[in-house]
């Protein structure tokens, strides 16, 4: 007799083992995918969750999408179950092919009319929401928003009713009063970007040469995170934004502080030396309103000569913001940041308006940024390689600052409050 040794497996057996393994792998992959989706939905730290509206505009969208999702889900389940039943019921078991018929007008008309009616109902409510979200006639505060690679600029036009008697310009964080209908007038300096604070409204593209509007309104004071949602180049993923809603009183304080005159650092301090470094290096692109050169003339930045988009963040009152580098980095250490983010509505304004002090400054990220910005945020910032842009940067270049200069600059920037 021809005996196989015990470790020999018949070919058919090997095939079935492989099939079983493949099936198990498939099942594991399916379970893992489901688990990831399930666990993902359990995340508590999800500041860009579209299902948690924090203002009337986002609520309008939520009120529309909830029933639409429910109806679509029910229809999806019905269709899936029907397909599964048909697959199981009429599986090829060798039975004869049933009689073939063509056309059932009543059924076809029914299956056309019902979806049409459902879509018509959804369409009516959708159009209503679209038109409500496009309203501009009830605006209470206007803010101009300009996108560029890879940060957002906010400027507040003169609006005397809000105490804005001179334009305010900021970046990284959009500060607005809670319970107020704010209208963003969006545009872009280079490519198409898209502004999206999920908790406050849907998306709106910022397109060069065009002014697009987006309504925002926050019910309560707090910080609401967002993200550029139109691919805009190398650091698109790092082009973030935060909308900060303050009570009207706190917003008035913020306005007043933003319009306050520039305070030069005291003579003989490290910050004063930092001001000199700023004037030598940073003012080529970054404006600090009120900053004067040693000869007494105003220091006017020239980003139009150095940056492809023609602009760089205005750093006036930098330390009243909580972020820098297009909101990619926090100016606050984690503990201080959590203290602001997790503050209740009553305390939030006070904590936010306190700004950034030396104890809370995220000095590591700030120093790393000043040391070599392109190393910590991908940017096209090597002028030698930028022939297409005539040597103009996209983003901040490596300035080659010494550690001593960085010390001085950090001390100076801390005074910009």
């Amino acid at each position, binding site marked *: 007799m021809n005996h196989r040794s015990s470790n020999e497996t018949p070919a058919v057996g090997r095939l079935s083992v492989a099939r079983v393994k493949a099936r198990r792998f498939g099942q594991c992959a399916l379970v893992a995918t489901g688990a990831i989706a399930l666990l993902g939905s359990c995340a508590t730290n999800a500041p860009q969750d579209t299902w948690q509206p924090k203002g009337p505009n986002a609520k309008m969208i939520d009120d529309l999408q909830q029933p639409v999702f429910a109806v679509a889900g029910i229809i999806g389940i019905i269709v899936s179950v029907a397909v599964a039943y048909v697959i199981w019921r009429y599986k090829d078991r060798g039975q004869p092919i049933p009689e073939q018929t063509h056309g059932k007008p009543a059924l076809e008309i029914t299956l056309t009319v019902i979806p049409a009616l459902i879509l018509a109902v959804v369409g009516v409510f959708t159009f209503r929401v679209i038109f409500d979200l496009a309203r*501009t*006639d009830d*605006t209470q505060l*206007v803010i*101009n928003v*300009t996108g560029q690679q890879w940060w957002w*600029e906010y*400027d507040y*036009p*003169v609006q005397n009713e809000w105490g804005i008697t001179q*334009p*305010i*310009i900021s970046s990284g964080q959009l500060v607005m009063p809670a319970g107020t209908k704010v*209208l963003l*007038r969006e*545009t*872009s*300096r280079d490519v198409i970007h898209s502004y999206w604070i999920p908790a406050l409204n849907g998306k709106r593209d910022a*397109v*060069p*040469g*065009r*002014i*697009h*509007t987006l309504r925002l309104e926050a019910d309560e004071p707090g910080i609401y995170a967002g993200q550029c949602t139109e691919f805009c180049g190398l650091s698109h993923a790092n082009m973030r934004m935060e909308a900060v809603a303050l009570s009207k009183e706190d917003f008035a304080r913020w306005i007043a502080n933003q319009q306050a005159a520039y305070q030069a650092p005291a003579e003989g301090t490290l910050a004063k030396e930092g001001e000199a470094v700023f004037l030598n290096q940073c003012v080529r692109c970054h*404006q600090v*309103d009120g900053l004067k050169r040693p000869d007494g003339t*105003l220091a*006017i930045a*020239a*980003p*139009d*000569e150095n940056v492809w*988009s*023609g*602009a760089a963040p*205005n750093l006036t009152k930098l330390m009243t913001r909580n972020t820098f580098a297009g909101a990619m980095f926090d100016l606050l250490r984690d503990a201080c940041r959590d203290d602001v983010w997790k503050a209740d509505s009553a305390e939030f304004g006070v904590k936010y308006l306190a700004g950034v002090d030396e104890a809370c400054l995220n000095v590591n990220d700030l120093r790393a940024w000043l040391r070599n910005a392109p190393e910590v945020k991908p940017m096209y910032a090597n002028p030698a390689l930028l022939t297409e842009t005539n040597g103009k940067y996209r983003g901040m270049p490596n300035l080659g600052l010494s550690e001593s200069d960085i010390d001085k600059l950090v001390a100076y920037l801390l005074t910009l409050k």
Partner: protein
Amino acid sequence: MFKVGSKLFLGLTGFAALTLVAYLIFVERLALGGVALSVVFAVLVGLSAVIIMINDGDSEVQPRDVSLVRASMWPLVTVVGFVLLILGLVVAQVYFIFGIVVVLAALTEWLVQAWSESASDDAAHNESARRRLLHPIEFPVIATLGLGVIIFAFSRIMLAISKSAGAVAFIVLSSLVLLVGAIVALRPALKSALVSGICVAGAVGIVVGGIAGQGAGLRTELAEAAAEGHFLHRECGEEKSKYFDKKAMKTISLRTNPVAIVELRGGVLSAIMTGFNEPQKIVSVPRGNPVTFIFRNFDDAERRMVASLGTAMAAGAETSTEKEGHSDSNETCTQLIPQGAEQALTVTYAKPSIAQEDPLTLTVPGVTGQAIEVVVP
């Protein structure tokens, strides 16, 4: 070794190679013509290789029935093409390229005709084979050329006659086309010769009109406007240009999403901006970014809007006015527009307002005490 077809293609390949070399030496290197000739040469090399490989399709040269050979104009056209080609080497590239096109087209026709005439002993069959091969190429090419000539001739007519006469000409011509089309549709039994005759007569009429129009030249205002060069300059003071289309941008505001619509109404200048419920006197615009204003004139008189660009402009930057030959000016403007019209004006403010000695403004000459302040943060 080589049969007739192979020899022909080898000869053509050699000719293409010589032409390419001559072009590269005498006309221009690395130009489009060189690329085109290289492609022609490469294609002929490929075709030669194929025809040699298949041994001319194993065809046998049959004694030809001379009566099947028709008279052909293609040798003559080919010679004309060669003349153009050689002339182009000396005079101008355009003749050279045209010569290549003529030579290639004539050779193609000649070759196919010669091939078809020896295809069989049946002249009708031979002609049918030629048509089957060439009509899919000939018809679109002839139609394109014919339409091109008609369109060009019609454009000459329209540029020669006055605007009013042009409108009439359009109406008459389109009515005639509609009428003929309707007749043909209603009477399908109409003789094709009659329809062809009408179409040919119409085409000839347009071509003759076009020749006459070309002879007459541009109508007066177009000729004067071209001499004036008004598209190349713009005055923000007294208007020096006589001819321009004042309503050219009448509906542009529907498409541009401007930063502000500046209206002159009842002697008052105001800016209408989305989001602001009341007309504004201050407009805030981002620095270093092109922004578009729409100027609407509701005044009785013709007006223009002037935007001051400030004393501090970007170093080395070209403003729109500098581009137009007014480097001494730090303002730009719309054209004079009549009551009810509107125009767009796109401006880039490279420097912030704090860098300017005087406020940046939008004003309308002749309207005193009215200005919109432009703030650039």
